[in-house]
Structure formats: C-alpha cells, structure tokens
C-alpha cells in the first residue's frame, strides 16, 4: 500500500527541492556580483574620497592630493548635451511609434531600434569620430555628447513606446470625444498619463550612458583641466577612471577607485530615484 504512492511523493518532493535550490543559487549568482563590486569599490575607493576630490583639479604625477572635479562636472555637461539631443528625439520617436505610423513601418523601426540597442558602445564612438571629430578636426564635448545621445535614443524610444501603449484606450477616447484635437490628446492626455514611465526610461538611459567610457575615447577624449569651450576636449568621469587605472602610479590608482565609487554611487542613486518615481505611480493609481 505505502510503496508506490509514498515513493513517488518523496521523489516529487526531492525534485521540487532540487529545482528551488537551483533557482535560489541562480538568484544569488545574480545578486552576488553587484554586492561584490559595490563593496570592493567602496573598500578601495573610500580612502581617496575627501572634499578635495570633489573640489580640486587633477595634480601632476607625484604631487599629492588633487581631485576630479573637472571630470565630474564634465560628465554632467556631457549628459546634459546628450539629453538635449537624445531625450526629445527618443521621446518623440516613441510617441510616433505608439500613436502614428503604419504597422509595417513601425515594426521595421522597432526592429532597428532593438538592433541599435545591441550595438557595442565603442561603435558609436567610432561613428561620431568619423562624422564629427574628423570633420571639425578636433575632439570635443559636442562629439562626446552626441555619441552618448545616439546610445540614449533607441533606449528612450523603446521605453516611451511601451509605456504609452500601456495607457488605456478609454482615456484617448474620452479626450477625443470632447472634441480635443488628436495631437493635443496625445501630448496633454496620453503622454501626461505615461509621463512617470517616460521619466523612468530617461533616468535609466542617463544612468546607462553616464557610465560609458568607450564612446568617449575618440570623441570627448578627456582633459586634465577645465573645459572652457564645448568644441574642445572635455573630461569625463569614466574616461578619467580609465586613464588613471591604466597608469603606473599608485596615487592615480587610488583616485581611479575613488572615481569609480562616485560613478557607481551616482548610478545607484539614479536607480533608487527610479524606484521612488515608480512607487509614487503605483500608490496613486
């Protein structure tokens, strides 16, 4: 009596335990690198973090002290430049995909955007090098900003499209039934309803490109001093980290770790901000 049924029961129990164990291990494998990276960067970088790091320009090799203020400000400038191009193009493109356009053209555009999202970021650096840097014969903040913008556009485009498609059709109908023109309905009702999702997409795109080094190598190029003209090379945090990390000087290595810590913290903060933004949405809905 107890033979077959009990055996198969314990066998099923064993299988279930194995599978949940495997999924648990996979989950740990996903989380562990994040924790390891964060704590290692924290441990190595915290020693070089001080007020001077945020207020001083880099010092020549051998001189103690110095900071990365120009790189931090430069990164913000590059992100601002990238936003000026990337956010409007990405958001409007997403609106177009979701609201206008023929189905066949849209599926082609969507496919292209997905391919672009997968293009290695250094490719964007080379493209902009060819298009801008060679033409104007100078590395520049503009070129760096454009390279970052080109990475942002397909990211923002796809998230914008997706969140706009989530807006229930009832709101569109209600607005149109009030005699509101279609473009006003889309901008004032649909995009407004989806705005938190769009902002989330923009923030995540900014966090992503904020840490990019490769597209800046042949565009923004880096700079040990303040940038006074956006058509000149500009410092960026990831570039500065790269330069310092491959240098042979211990002092610079410490600064590179500190830079990495600042960068990781920045990206982390943006992600937390995104969580807060999306939480407000679910609370009000």
């Amino acid at each position, binding site marked *: 009596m107890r033979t077959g049924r009990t055996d198969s029961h314990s066998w099923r129990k064993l299988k279930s335990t194995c599978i949940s164990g495997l999924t648990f291990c996979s989950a740990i494998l996903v989380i562990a690198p994040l924790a390891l990276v964060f704590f290692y960067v924290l441990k190595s970088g915290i020693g070089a973090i001080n007020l001077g790091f945020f207020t001083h320009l880099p010092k020549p090799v051998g001189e103690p002290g110095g900071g990365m203020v120009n790189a931090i400000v430069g990164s913000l400038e590059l992100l601002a430049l990238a936003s000026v191009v990337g956010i409007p193009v990405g958001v409007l493109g997403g609106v177009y995909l979701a609201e206008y356009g023929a189905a066949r053209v849209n599926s082609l555009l969507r496919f292209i955007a997905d391919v672009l999202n997968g293009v290695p970021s250094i490719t964007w650096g080379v493209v902009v090098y060819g298009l801008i840097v060679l033409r104007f014969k100078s590395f520049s903040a503009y070129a760096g900003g454009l390279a970052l913008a080109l990475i942002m556009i397909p990211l923002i485009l796809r998230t914008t499209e997706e969140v706009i498609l989530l807006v229930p059709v*009832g709101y569109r109908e209600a607005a149109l039934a*009030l005699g509101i023109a279609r473009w006003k309905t889309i901008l004032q009702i649909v995009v407004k309803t989806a705005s938190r999702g769009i902002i989330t997409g923009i923030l995540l795109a900014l966090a992503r490109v904020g840490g990019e080094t490769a597209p800046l190598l042949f565009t923004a190029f880096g700079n040990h001093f303040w940038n006074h003209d956006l058509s000149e090379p500009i410092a960026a945090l990831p570039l500065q980290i790269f330069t310092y990390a491959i240098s042979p000087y211990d002092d610079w290595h410490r600064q590179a770790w500190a830079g990495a810590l600042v960068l990781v913290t920045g990206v982390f903060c943006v992600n937390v901000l995104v969580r807060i933004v999306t939480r407000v949405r679910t609370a009000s809905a």
Partner: protein
Amino acid sequence: MITLPMPQPEVIESRDREAAATPDMEQEPLPLVIESKNLSMWYGSKRAIENVSLDIPARAVTAIIGPSGCGKSTFLRALNRMHELVPHARIEGSVLLDGENLYASDVDPAIVRRRVGMIFQKSNPFPTMSIGENVIIGLRLNGVRDRKFLNERLEKSLRMAALWDEVKDDLHKSGTSLSGGQQQRLCIARALAVEPEVILMDEPCSALDPIATAKIEELIQGLKAQYTIVIVTHNMQQAGRVSDFTAFFYMGRLIEIGSTTKIFTNPSQKQTEDYITGRFG
C-alpha cells in the same frame, strides 16, 4: 460671452440662437437633430451595420436596444465619428447633424465631437488630473483661458451632473478617488462642459450598482430638456424607464423604431416582440 474657436461660423450661430432662446421667443423647432441615411459600416471585411436609416428627435432620449453584436454600439460611434479610431473601419452613407453631413470631406472630426459628446461604458476620468481639471479640460485644450469663465462652467457642469454638492470641497482631489457612480457623473460633467448638442451614452450604467444607476437615470431625465440623448443599453427596463423613443437593432440592421411605449407594448415587428418578451437575445 466666450465661444469656442470654431472654424464653422454656422455652428456658432445655431448655438448662440439656442442659448439666447427664451420661452416666449418664437423658435423654429428642430424636430430631428440627427438623421442617418443608408448608413453601413465595415470593420475590415466584416459588415457591422447595414443600411441603417434612423432619425433621432431633438431634446428627447432615444434608446438603442438589441442583443450583443447587433451593431448598436457601432452605430452610436458612427454618430460622432469615434469609430475612426479603429483601423480599417469604413463607412458608407451619411449622418446629418442639423442637416449637415458629418462625413462631408471638409468636416473636422474634432468639431463633430464637440457638438456630439460621448459617455462610455467604463468611467474614464483622467488619472493625472483633479476633479476640477477633469471637468474643464475640454474647454482648456480647446483654447479657453478665462479663469472666471472656466470656474463658472465648472460649477454649472457639475451641478447639471448632480455632482456639485458631493465634490465642491474636493475639487483639487484626484478624479479617480471618487466612487464608480461619481466617476461616471464626473465624466458626464466633463462632456457637458463643452456644451454639446447631442450626448451619446454607450451603456453608461453597465458597471454601476442599482443606486448609482438610478442617479444616472434621473440625471438623464433632467438633461433631456436641453440635450438630445442617445443611449445604448443592454437593460430593457432601463430603456423603458429613461427613453422616449426606442430603436431595436438586430444583426446590424434597424428592425424598428418608435415611441418607447409602442415598442414595448405593441411592436409592429415579430423580431422586436420576440426580443422584448425575452424569447431570444
């Protein structure tokens, strides 16, 4: 007096005449507001309504009844060109509003919808806006800026929708914070604020409890003094309670239209009688 910016002068004229009308004024009665003539409609290759000719009298409630899929909602949406949101929807025939063809090539669908408002099955106040903003959004997005005028219209519309007393202290709160029945009345206030001539209602009470339904029905009775109302309903008792005229649709065709009393007591078509008495549908 502020009027909406409308490219069609004759529209403004006819409205102003209505607004200025006093009881003793000799007013030309408009017996018919909407006339559909040989209206057929397709979704892709599927014909949804077939050759419907139907006159809708002014300042009365016309109910459209019929089993699911009979084309009654489709017909309703053809009256303010809402079906154009559906890709591959195609229409033949014409719909006249005060004698003008809504489907003439020079007619802007936005203007049509300002004159023919709509209430939907599921209440849909805009979630990003407060109660007050919801009511005046139609005016604001049509270019009305005058704060005083907007406030007056806000109160007037909410009073007409029998919602003012319930929300007057909470105008800044989110429209979605209201109950289902209040949300539907908010949607009615929002539609009234742009002062349409006709209000289409697509099963406005099907998601509401009996008490909220009774309030909406009472509201419809009050509104018909000023507006022409067309209501699609699944609920025959509701059609009997609120409407003056009833049209019965079956399989995409208009079977019969007449006074509600006649349709419910002495229909001339066998199919109508079978549906009314519950033999099918």
